[in-house]
């Protein structure tokens, strides 16, 4: 079992490493991730939302839908813990 | 042929399907329930008969239920071939209903409501098969018939019924899903349609001979209700059912639905011309001939009367397939005609077997010595029925066998003629001892005296069907005409 797990791990790691070959270098300001979307956020977010903390602006507004579900996720977690752990009264 | 859109085909199918509901509802009142049964059976005959004139005049009816797959609707269509089968089935159902009432009451069977309801659904499916306009609709009703007969086969709900029921479903469902369904799909893929068309739909697809052979064999084995060996084992097993079930379903409806489906495929999916062109007729005739001979030989060895009849049925069914496989018009007419002739003969035989069981409680031929003197009407009917099956004049079976023999000669396959003759001889060999024992052997010692004829409800139907098989020799006109129309003569 452990050997199998090790093999699975190594294979997964190898595939991931193979995938990193195409990655732009770390910290490259011209990487696709750094130029495509994020520039719009950095340049427009303050003007569009009046929130200087870009993370908050993106979190609360541009991707507010994600954040809403994030809140629901943690709400669910709380409920799930209660419902799993408590013994029912009857 | 021109078809007019009409609700009547649907009505003919639905009347007994919906009729199952009032039967179920009147669970606690047997008289009401059985009145319903007879009423529905009668209504069905009337509806089917009302469509007869139009069909005889070369017309037909069509009704589309739903369009489910591109180019393949669920559609009912009444043509000569369907009319032929529907007429046989609905008339015989009327007799069977009467007989069932007598039989079930005499034996005081349990769960009679379920029995009559399933019966109604089964006949509905049978008519559905008869009136199917395409292969998909036929398959639908074919499966409906398989499933609705399961409660009938396992009616007694004991260990034997359970085993037989399992065997029945394994054969029937297994072959229809495993062989018929893929054959149907490949056909659809090749032809783009599944409509029954005079002359076949596969001719235009340009498929090569090996593919066609594969499809044909899949279809023949797929419709295992026709009992082509080696997929015949379910039929003797299904004989555990109450006798009306055996007589009607396993003498007429179920098995003939299998044959009818194969005939439909040969006539209207492949088309005789295509089969002749790629020389596939021999495949059919070889399979059928083998089944005829083997089944007749096995029938000789059976002591249980119903099992002997079952093997006889297997053999007779292959006559019809054989006729179709000759690919000549006369042979095909003979094959189709044999559906009707055999139906009347075999149902008489089964009715008699049931009557003997009701009256004397006997199942085995070896116990039936001397019974003929006590139940003369039953035994006379049995004699008539067996003569018809053997193909003696003046009984209906002669007409179909004559056509078959002519077809064999016409197609130039004299070996088939030999098969017909040998099997007729074998038929005589396994039927005459029963009659002989009944009339001429002394009764075994210690036999109770009280044995007399079965109740009237049993006796009347079996007399009528026996007379019918006699009458069909003299007046075969209606069926002959329909059969000829079906093969295009």
């Amino acid at each position: 079992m452990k050997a199998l797990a090790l093999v699975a791990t190594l294979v997964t790691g190898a595939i991931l490493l193979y995938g990193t070959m195409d990655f732009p270098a770390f910290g490259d300001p011209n990487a696709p991730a750094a130029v495509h979307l994020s520039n719009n956020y950095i340049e427009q977010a303050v003007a569009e939302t009046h929130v200087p903390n870009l993370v908050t602006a993106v979190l609360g507004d541009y991707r507010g839908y994600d954040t809403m579900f994030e809140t629901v996720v943690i709400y669910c977690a709380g409920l799930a813990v209660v419902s799993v752990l408590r013994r029912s009264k009857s | 042929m021109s078809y007019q859109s009409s609700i009547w085909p649907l009505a003919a199918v639905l009347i007994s399907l919906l009729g199952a509901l009032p039967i179920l509802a009147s669970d606690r009142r047997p008289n009401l329930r059985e009145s319903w049964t007879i009423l529905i059976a009668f209504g069905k005959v009337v509806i089917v008969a009302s469509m007869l004139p139009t069909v005889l005049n070369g017309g037909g009816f069509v009704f589309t239920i739903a369009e489910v797959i591109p180019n393949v609707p669920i559609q009912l269509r009444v043509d000569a071939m369907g009319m032929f089968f529907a007429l046989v089935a609905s008339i015989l159902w009327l007799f069977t209903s009467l007989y069932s009432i007598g039989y079930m009451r005499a034996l005081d069977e349990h769960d009679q409501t379920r029995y009559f309801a399933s019966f109604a659904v089964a006949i509905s499916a049978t008519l559905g098969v008869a009136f199917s306009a395409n292969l998909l609709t036929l398959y639908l009703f074919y499966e409906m018939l398989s499933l609705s007969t399961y409660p009938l086969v396992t009616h007694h709900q004991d260990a034997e019924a359970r085993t037989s029921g399992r065997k029945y479903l394994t054969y029937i469902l297994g072959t229809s899903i495993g062989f018929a369904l893929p054959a149907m799909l490949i056909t659809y893929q090749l032809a783009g349609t599944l409509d029954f068309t005079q002359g076949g739909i596969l001719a235009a697809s340009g498929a090569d001979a090996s593919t066609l052979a594969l499809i044909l064999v899949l279809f023949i084995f797929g419709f295992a209700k026709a009992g082509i060996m080696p997929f015949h084992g379910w039929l003797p097993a299904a004989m555990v059912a109450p006798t009306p079930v055996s007589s009607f379903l396993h003498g007429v409806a179920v098995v003939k639905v299998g044959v009818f489906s194969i005939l439909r495929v040969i006539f209207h999916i492949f088309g005789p011309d295509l089969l002749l062109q790629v020389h596939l007729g021999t495949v059919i005739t070889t399979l059928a001939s083998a089944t005829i001979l083997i089944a007749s030989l096995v029938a000789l060895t059976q002591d249980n009367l119903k099992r002997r009849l079952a093997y006889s049925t297997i053999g007779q069914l292959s006559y019809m397939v054989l006729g179709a496989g000759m690919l000549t018009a006369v042979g095909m007419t003979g094959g189709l005609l044999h559906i009707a002739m055999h139906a009347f003969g075999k149902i008489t035989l089964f009715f008699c077997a049931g009557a003997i069981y009701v009256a004397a409680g006997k199942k085995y031929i070896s116990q039936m010595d001397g019974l003929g003197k006590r139940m003369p009407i039953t035994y006379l009917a049995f004699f008539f029925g067996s003569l018809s099956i053997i193909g003696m004049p003046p009984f209906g079976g002669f007409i179909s066998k004559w056509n078959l023999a002519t077809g064999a000669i016409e197609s130039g396959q004299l070996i088939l003629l030999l098969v017909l003759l040998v099997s007729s001889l074998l038929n005589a060999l396994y039927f005459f001892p029963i009659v002989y024992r009944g009339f001429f052997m002394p009764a075994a010692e210690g036999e109770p005296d009280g044995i007399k004829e079965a109740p009237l409800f049993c006796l009347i139907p079996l007399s009528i069907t026996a007379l019918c098989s006699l009458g069909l020799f003299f007046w075969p006109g209606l069926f002959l005409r329909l059969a000829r129309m079906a093969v295009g003569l």
Partner: protein
Amino acid sequence: MKLLQERTEKQKFGESLIIQTAVRMMVPFIQLFGLYVIVHGHYSPGGGFQGGVILGASFVLLALAFDLRTSVRYMSERVNNTLGNVGVLIYTGVAVLCALFGGLFLDYSALDAIIPLGPIAWRSFGIFLVEVGVGLAVMSIMVSLFWDLGSGGEMDEGL
């Protein structure tokens, strides 16, 4: 001195006077900091989630230094639960409200129809509103998680 000794002996494992006193003094400041983090999320690192966790941590700290019952005395389970529900309700409610007032889902500028502050200001304010909601929800859930996991689900039976 003796009194103190007796008291120390009576104390359960892990409880100490010094820690308890320190915690008692620290909790208000922690809570204040948590509120600051929520409110000031627009201008500095942090926001509803982090602030909520800090608020929740203050109760967890109480529970650690004293026991679970003490923290329940500060905020009963019913209140905690209501706060959690209200928190999520603020977020989803604002989202639906935006849709109801003619905008798209979560389009805060649509709320301009209620109080005209200007669409951009409403965006900023809307973010603030939902951050408060997130803060409440996260605080409540964190506390509830700790209560339940720390008591093994015995909350109902007096911890």
